[in-house]
């Protein structure tokens, strides 16, 4: 098997699920003839036809609304946001219709919303955002955010098979930068389980998405200084693998949370609160965080570089924590 990129892994997941289950349909803007702005759906129209790969007008609210309606018919629609930033246009559908349907009246919504998120590609304020916490904060939704091609494929398959609405965030910086060989046979990655990317005894770095790569680079450097960091890739943000985080903190007694999302209201706060409640006695130092700035995502390269967490920010925070 030749190694595949993350975006190819996503396409494989869609293709294989469509082949396996005729109730899987795709809906979004420019996903058919063009194959999607990032080519995640390339070739699928040719294979599955107009009824299953539905090009829509520029109407995010209608895309999500129609996907909900199709899921009430027992279908499993996968809706693409051309850039995840545009999900703000259908926020109401997401948080009021989709998320609350099962709780309010027992109407399950087995749909997936997926799209490219994240910065580092100079996309500017409207093509770089990380909107995960808007949805983590909305009961009823699941939110996954892979960092590898393997996970992108396995989590998307789990999302499609899940009876609940799942938001799949795909970091566009990683789309073509991570590459790996994937198993030939069908596999899934369970929603709600983190992965230990690097074991360590001195401190825990909990992170996800593109920051997993930065954190692993930082851990490599820290190891040269004799600091062994354990790197946790959260993979799912809702439901959060709280136990996995606690288990690691019990071992290392120190926690650094790293995310590309802005600082205030980011998941670091939720993780810190959880560890305080459940493992306070195990802590040997303060819970620290490395995050983006509390600003919109700026456009120009030096500005965006300042906005985003860098490897050096992570090593600096880790050294500080290691001193306790």
């Amino acid at each position: 098997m030749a190694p595949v990129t993350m975006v190819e892994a996503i396409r494989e997941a869609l293709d294989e699920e469509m082949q396996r289950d005729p109730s899987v349909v795709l809906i979004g803007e420019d996903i058919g003839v063009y194959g999607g702005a990032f080519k995640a759906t390339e070739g699928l129209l040719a294979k599955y036809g107009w009824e299953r790969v539905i090009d829509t007008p520029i109407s995010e609210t209608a895309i999500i609304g129609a996907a909900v309606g199709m899921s009430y018919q027992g279908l499993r629609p996968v809706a693409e946001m051309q850039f995840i930033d545009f999900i703000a246009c259908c926020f109401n559908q997401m948080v009021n219709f989709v998320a609350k349907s099962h709780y309010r009246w027992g109407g399950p919504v087995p749909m997936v919303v997926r799209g490219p998120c994240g910065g580092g590609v100079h996309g500017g304020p409207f093509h770089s955002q990380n909107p995960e916490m808007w949805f983590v904060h909305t009961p009823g939704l699941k939110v996954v955010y892979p960092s590898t091609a393997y996970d992108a494929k396995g989590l998307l398959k789990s999302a499609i098979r899940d009876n609940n609405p799942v938001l799949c965030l795909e970091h566009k910086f990683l789309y073509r930068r991570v590459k790996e060989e994937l198993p030939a046979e069908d596999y899934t990655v369970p929603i709600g389980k983190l992965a230990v990317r690097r074991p360590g005894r001195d401190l825990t770095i909990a992170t996800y998405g593109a920051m997993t790569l930065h954190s692993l680079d930082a851990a490599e450097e820290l190891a040269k200084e004799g600091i062994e960091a354990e790197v946790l890739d959260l993979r799912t943000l809702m439901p959060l693998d709280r136990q996995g985080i606690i288990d690691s903190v019990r071992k290392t007694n120190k926690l650094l949370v790293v995310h590309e999302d802005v600082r205030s209201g980011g998941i670091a706060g939720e993780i810190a609160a959880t560890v305080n409640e459940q493992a306070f006695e195990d802590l040997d130092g303060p819970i620290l965080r490395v995050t983006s700035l509390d600003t919109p995502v700026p456009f120009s390269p030096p500005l965006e570089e300042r906005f985003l967490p860098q490897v050096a920010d992570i090593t600096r925070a880790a050294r500080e924590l290691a001193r306790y």
Partner: protein
Amino acid sequence: MTLPEMKYPLSRDQLLDLYYFMKLTRELDEQLVRLFRQNKVVGGLYSSIGQEASAVGTAYTLEKRDWIAPMIRNVGGLLVKGFRPRDILMQYMARSGAPTGGKDGTSHFGDLQDRHVVSPISMLGDLIPVMTGVAMGGRYLGQKIVTMTWIGDGGTSTGAFHEGMNLAAAQHAPFVCVVENNQWAYSTPVARQVPLKNLADRARAYGIPGYVVDGNDVIAVYQATKEAVELARRGEGPVLVESKTMRMKGHAQHDPAGYVPPEMFEYWKARDPLALYEKWLTENKVWDKKAKDEIEARIERELKEDIEIAEASPLPNAEEAERGVYCEGCHTIEAHWERPIAEVQPPKASVQPVWTVPDFGALNNARGSAPAAAASAPDDGARAEAHSNSSAKSAPAGSGAPKRPARAEARPKGRR
């Protein structure tokens, strides 16, 4: 007895059925007001008095396999679809026996499996794309269904309404949207919301037929909506039906509606849908006093029983608040296929992924004069042009079929 001639005939039983549902809606409404005054209703109470013909006459055009999503003033539609007064009573009273078990109130409930009812949300407009999706899904599965929802005059100004109608039109979805123009959106009159006399004119922007109908004449409502439903079922795309009626109470119980000119209430009171229909049934000798009395006694009996059931239902246990955020195996998701699955799987499903562009879009294009015609899926060219002459038109009882654009071929290949 000979019944009046109609384009879409109704039997005597059906005519009496319509009366039963309208009267039941009215009586249920009045019982709810009584319960509200006794503090047994939790939260606000929304009346559909004056709009019974509109909700019942539209929903009655549907078959069992069809889908609806009721808005708050469409209790009549819920009753037609098979829910009972007890369901609505317990929803308003927040009881454990309510369809949502107290998780939500009012008409916010549904039933995907048997009655094909989608629960609304409060945010106006959002049901339009959702019911478009139910229609698209049904078509994909090979079901010959029609979906229907209602929206107020006020709700037609939301972005969701526009996005949904536009997608429904672009997709030729078998969807009927009933605009209930009851003259008011809370305290704001129609003229202050929309610079249109007929809200059905909004249909022109989507290139779909728009009908105007007297919403207080249940027969007219039925005839016009039936035509719309048949059109949609034949695969000719969505239809917008404007039902002109009047909200005869305030927005909800708390609102005395002092902003409505008293003469306006007087005008519409003389056009009360129930009184009009009673008169029609009598004049056309469909019923006699005995038949009327029987229906009314039945309603009284049923309501009495349902109120007892509702009052006996306890409030929900507090722990229920913690359950049901996710489906954890409590539902089996199953699509009901009514076509061969092979049709949607390769190699049968496979197509040439190219657009045909029958009109190049210039102002004076030799290939067609309508600038609206645009790039489209294969075979999809004629559509925009064909639709450009459809516009709002009245479709009262017995009126001829509206001029229909030829559009059978106007779909991407393989879609049905």
